[in-house]
């Protein structure tokens, strides 16, 4: 019986199918809000779903030079990584399906897997656009990854645990967005970098390199990358709001808090101009990482004093 429940919770609710659908819903909210900010009508509610259905039905074309094993394998690994990451976060306000001390590091690693796979996929298809896109995606990974990780470590240090569920519980009494505002901002912007949302969309800047690393992908492979992306969106938002916005317990707080974070992100997306890749790296290492390091130092010192 127990194993059946675990299986259901993995495949149907709250992970698995529900996760995919929620991811698509959040993607729609993102697209719709950006469209409204830009004075456009925007897509209808089922558009992300329709996109995926369409892609799944389409022919998949393998470039001659690509290694087929990698070509088919990478989207699966990317999607699997994103789905596994979802297991450790308090999705839809429920306790994480699985939890162990140190799962924060594992989750962040799993989230990066998507970018790594995208980079490898770009290298594997070896089109000119995808090569440049892959280089940019990986360069950008090195720019935001450390500050993003450090930004999430802030609440972890304050809690004294590297377990997501523990931090989530601790956060319900401590709004870290107020006590660690710099960390919150860095985490929010780092998440946008991770998701390659504007202004960090240089890896897929359509005006230069078409679709970046995924230029050669079509059909199922592209669909898997896209689903992976929307899952990464929801997992990332869940992490940031669980850590900084007073924890996630219950469906209503989950919706309110995560949508608030998404709303902030859409505002930034519509306001900001794309950064060149050198500007992105410069910004993260010159400001992002230094600010968040200062924040962590202060947290450690304060914690030491309090103890």
């Amino acid at each position, binding site marked *: 019986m127990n194993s059946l429940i675990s299986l259901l919770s993995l495949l149907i609710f709250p992970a698995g199918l529900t996760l995919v659908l929620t991811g698509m819903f959040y993607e729609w909210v993102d697209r719709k809000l950006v469209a409204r*900010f*830009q*004075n*456009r009508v925007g897509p209808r509610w089922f558009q992300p779903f329709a996109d995926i259905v369409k892609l799944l039905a389409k022919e998949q074309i393998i470039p001659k*030079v690509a290694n087929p094993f990698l070509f088919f394998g990478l989207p699966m690994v990317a999607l699997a990584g994103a789905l596994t990451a979802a297991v450790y976060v308090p999705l839809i306000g429920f306790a994480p399906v699985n939890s162990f001390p140190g799962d924060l590091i594992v989750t962040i690693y799993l989230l990066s897997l998507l970018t790594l796979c995208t980079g490898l996929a770009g290298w594997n298809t*070896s*089109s*000119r*656009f995808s*090569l*440049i896109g892959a*280089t940019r995606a990986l360069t950008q990974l090195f720019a935001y990854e450390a500050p993003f990780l450090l930004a999430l470590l802030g609440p972890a240090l304050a809690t004294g645990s590297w377990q997501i569920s523990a931090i989530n519980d601790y956060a319900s009494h401590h709004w870290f967005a107020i006590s660690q505002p710099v960390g919150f901002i860095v985490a929010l912007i780092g998440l946008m970098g991770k998701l390659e949302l*504007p*202004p960090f*969309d*240089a890896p897929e*800047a*359509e*005006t*230069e*390199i*078409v679709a970046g690393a995924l230029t050669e992908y079509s059909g199922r492979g592209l669909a898997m990358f896209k689903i992976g992306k929307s899952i990464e969106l929801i997992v990332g938002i869940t992490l940031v709001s669980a850590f900084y916005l007073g924890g996630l317990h219950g469906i209503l707080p989950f919706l309110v808090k995560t949508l608030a974070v998404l709303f902030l992100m859409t505002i930034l997306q*519509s*306001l*900001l*101009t*794309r*950064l*060149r*890749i*050198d*500007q992105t790296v410069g910004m993260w290492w010159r400001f992002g990482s230094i600010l968040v390091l200062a924040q962590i130092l202060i947290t450690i010192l304060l914690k030491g004093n309090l103890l």
Partner: protein
Amino acid sequence: MNIEQTLQKAEELLTPWNKAATHPEVNRLDVCISAHDLRPAVTALHNAHWGYLSAITGTDLGAAAGQMEALYHFCNGPAIATLRIHLPRTKDARLSSIEDIIPPAAFFEREIREMLGFTITGSKNSERLFIPDDWPEDVYPLRSDFSIDQAKAVEGRHADELPEQGVVGGNTFVVPIGPQHPALKEPGHFEFTVDGEIVTAARMRLGYAHRGIEKAAESRNWIQNLYLFERVCGICSHTHSFAYSLGVEKLAQVEVSARAQAIRELVAGLERIHSHLLWLGVAAHEAGFDTLFMYSWRDRETVMNLLEQLTGNRVNYSINVLGGVKSDIGLEQAVAIKEGLNYLETCIRHYLEVVTTDTMFLNRTRGVGTILFAEAERFGLLGPTARASGLVRDVRVDAPYGAYKNFPISAVTEDNGDLEARCVVRLNELLVSCFAIRTIIDNLPAGPLTVKMPRKIPAGETISRVEAPRGELFYYIKSNGGENPARVHVRTPSLCNWVSVLEKAVGRQLADAPMLTAGMDPCFSCNDRVITTVDRSGSRQTWSWKDLRAYGIEYYKK
């Protein structure tokens, strides 16, 4: 200096090589020189800073005359000096390249080489620019005895095949942009050789949508051609028909009424607003600032609606007729235009604030692609791109035509020469245009809309220059006294501005390349006018006008 003195100066400069000089019009000097004197003559004008090379027109005088002409037009304010060179209609039609003296001449030279078969000696680039790669050798579409049967594609001739995967060797490879690319919705082809993110070489190719307009013009009568030239460009359609009608009216010595002239300037002003707002959107999109893109295109609808209300059309307004304009401005339209302008001015002021204060956008525009005054002069820049570098080249100011004498405008300049300056110049120009449009509406002169034009235009040749949204538009029109023109040569502003893009992209990041291209507001349909080759379903076929027409009729029957 007035026009006579300016022309006098040019004549003095050219004395050593002058074989015969005439003054076909008050503002023109025509000097015959021989081909081997071309370089010294051009150098003399260039070193004395006498104007700039505006265009090179090639004309085939026909098999009977056995000669071709190359005309080098230099413009200095309202004055135009033309160097006229007669050459035989054979391979011996040799001209020495002047691209080392005047860089933009390279494009003009390539045009006459491909279209008329001049041999240009000493030119750096022997690649084809306009005509297709599989176009046969020694067939020149603008020759008078060209027939469509000669234009059979040569199988397997492809000049620009790239190495496998574009890898040139080492760490560099070629990024192709266009003719099909999301950044470039128009058929141009650029190849940027990149080393990592840095562009190390740039190359371009045009002519993917040549329509043979110059050739077609020779077989149509004067009135039909008005509609043909209106279709050179979908964005500045009015300026093309404006320049053409001005030229033809000058040849026919017909004086158009002040009211018609004023309406033409008004439409040109509205068209400039539409064109620059469109450009602002494109530039913002290239930079990855889609919100500005959407906003400026939304507001552009206002001016599109005004144009539609005024002329009945949104794109090819077709308000010009030879001898005047088609439609008048009524009270209702005047009110609508003023209301629309009120709204647009608010928007333009807002955009001006955005492009000068938005830090993220400035990251991509300030100090990018800087062209300073001296360089702008060397590249022969035109229009807003030149004015952003402090180089005042605006036909409306330098050589006021039509109603611009009565309703003058002031030239807008900036000194920085970077992309930011180009944004600011264009937006400020719109405010100037709005002001001019209001003045015209308030002081619209009375008079008939059209005057009668003769069907046959007296023999002669003329040059008509109009300031298009992208810069000086140059029309050379020649009549033999018949119902059709003998030759119409169109030199669009985009062609003059390419050199700067190719030179400036080198050494910059790849991410800046689309911005640089967009910065000069390139117009591809402006460049592509000359060939009648249609590529359909993979096989290249040559279609004559008759075939196309038959195909069109057949297609719409279904």
